[in-house]
């Protein structure tokens, strides 16, 4: 049991980074649909940079840069050129997937660097919990810390409030002298950088190496997790762990039911649709309105200005 939980925490780490990153981007009102491609290209960039430099964190820097650049392109085409974000994001998703295949040929099945295993002294000796949470590597710890830090930042700080403001009512934020579009660039890029780190967390950590379409399907799944998570970091992380659990269970069941292991990873998307339909039912909405304690848990209101360009 401990071993399974430990591997779930590790397996979900890339998705934790990517889904919190996309949550931040979407909270600012920008929808970055390119994740399937940008995460894959970032995974390649991370692997290649690590391979040539021999230093794992250089790989993460390169991956973050690629993720941020693609996200900035999506934001820029919407803000500066008023092109539909969904269109650009979709084209970039396909383009970056093919680009990663073409540029990655030389790296297929090469041995690269990996993030070293580093149990935290002391904490990792706590019975049960120590093994599950504190005997991983730095990237996994950073993922856990990101859940706490991003939640605190988004809901307990002034700049977090502004982030939510520009995604909900950009005109009101503008009236209060908030530079809406400049901040949208910034948060799109920050979110994109986290998506890129998620990609590198695959190729340098939990799914070591590079292969043809190394992270196939995960980008679309992250988009689903963000919605499933109702644009809340903790719930997004929960979605990522749920998906990590499905993956680990599928892996364990592979010898017994070879077919099931192919189908289980496809489940989160239908699960997400089911959740969406459910939370949109009026009785559940009424319930959430009446019981304040449930409101945080059940509300899945899309940021009101998501995908809408703002012209001051």
């Amino acid at each position: 049991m401990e071993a399974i939980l430990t591997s779930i925490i590790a397996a979900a780490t890339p998705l934790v980074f990517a889904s919190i990153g996309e949550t931040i981007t979407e909270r600012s009102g920008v929808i970055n649909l390119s994740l399937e491609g940008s995460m894959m290209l970032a995974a390649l960039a991370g692997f290649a940079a690590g391979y040539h430099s021999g230093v794992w964190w250089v790989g993460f820097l390169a991956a973050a840069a690629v993720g941020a650049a693609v996200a900035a392109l999506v934001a820029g085409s919407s803000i500066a050129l008023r092109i539909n974000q969904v269109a650009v994001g979709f084209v970039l998703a396909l383009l970056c997937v093919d680009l990663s295949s073409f540029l990655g040929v030389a790296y297929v099945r090469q041995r690269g660097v990996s993030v070293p295993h580093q149990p935290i002294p002391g904490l990792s000796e706590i019975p049960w919990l120590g093994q599950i949470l504190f005997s991983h590597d730095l990237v996994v710890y950073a993922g856990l810390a990101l859940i706490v830090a991003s939640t605190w930042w988004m809901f307990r700080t002034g700049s977090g409030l502004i982030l939510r403001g520009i995604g909900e009512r950009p005109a009101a934020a503008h009236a209060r002298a908030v530079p809406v579009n400049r901040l949208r660039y910034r948060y799109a890029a920050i979110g994109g950088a986290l998506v890129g780190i998620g990609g590198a967390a695959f190729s340098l950590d939990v799914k070591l190496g590079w292969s043809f379409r190394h992270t196939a399907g995960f980008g679309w799944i992250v988009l689903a997790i963000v919605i499933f998570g109702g644009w809340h970091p903790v719930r997004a992380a929960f979605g990522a762990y749920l998906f990590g659990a499905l993956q680990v269970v599928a892996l364990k069941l592979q010898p017994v039911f070879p077919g099931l292991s192919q189908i289980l990873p496809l489940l989160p998307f239908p699960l997400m649709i089911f959740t969406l339909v459910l939370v949109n039912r009026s009785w559940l909405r009424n319930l959430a309105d009446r019981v304040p304690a449930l409101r945080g848990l059940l509300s899945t209101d899309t940021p009101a200005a998501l995908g809408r360009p703002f012209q001051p």
Partner: protein
Amino acid sequence: MPPAERTRLHRTALLVLPALAALGVGILLLLAAGVPPFEALWRLYEGAFGDGGDVANTLMAWVPLVLAAAGLCVTFAAGAWNIGIDGQITFGAISAAAAARLVPGSTAVVVPAVVLAGLAGGALWGLAAGVLRTHGGVNEIFGGLGLDFVARGLAIYLIIGPWQREGVASTGGTDLFRREAWLPTVGSTNLSILALVLAIAALAGTVVLLRGTRFGLELKAIGKGPASAILLGVDATRRMLWSFLICGGLAGVAGAVQAIGFHHKLVPAVSGGYGFLALLVVLLVGFRQAWIAPVALFFAAILSGSTQLQLRLDIDSSLGGVLQGVLVLLVLLARGWQLRRDRSTVAVVGSPTGEAV
């Protein structure tokens, strides 16, 4: 220069300059990969049109592309992003495979039954995405992607489960359909006249539907926003569902053609990514539906040419996808740039309705 002439010149430049730039990116990538670029591009052309067999393969890639793109014009007109179209192709192929396995008799009976089954299956899957949007409160982008995953899961389940090959359960696909269920082809090539006719009819039908009928006008009204739909007195929900039904149906026919005209069995990746590629085609042509035919031919040529490139020169076939993606991206950016210079128009590029999503 008279304004009309100037705009025509501009419009041509907006297509030609990005095409040249995309070509430039392709040449740079080939140089980076250590391949003589012009030889590779010549081989790409040869791979697409070199001999009769190559032309047949290109045309058979054109067919599902045109079918899916024609369908997407209908949902786009209504202002919906039917990104789940790959799932509709897949479910159409699954339904077609069921018909190919079940319906007895000669080709004259089985093939029409298979195509109709594909039409019905795709329409059902499209309708599901539409219902999720109109009645479930689920944006069609995510509902559609979700249904795509469901269709793929179903295909894998059938291939390794109930429809598994004699003796071995492998994800390589089901047993081949019996010969009567294959699309009849010309000579020894893969070219099927029936498939070509289906694609041309679908495209012509879509153009007529959108330009010449009241239904098309109503769809475009919905796409323009709720206010114009109300002015016309249109039941927006029903029209929206019809658009998904039509798009899904055409995608399903594409799936049927893939199943009985190309693979001759059900495989997990039966959609071949034609749905996503068709979205690129439609983004490129915008409102001018008639342009789908040449643009889809260009895309199909790149697709089949780059497959040959991999076989003959060992250049990864993803080069074709890179060229297509760069071209569409640059065209979108160029249009955006043009509109920025000419702020008299308020349309938003990339959404045929002129609306932000």
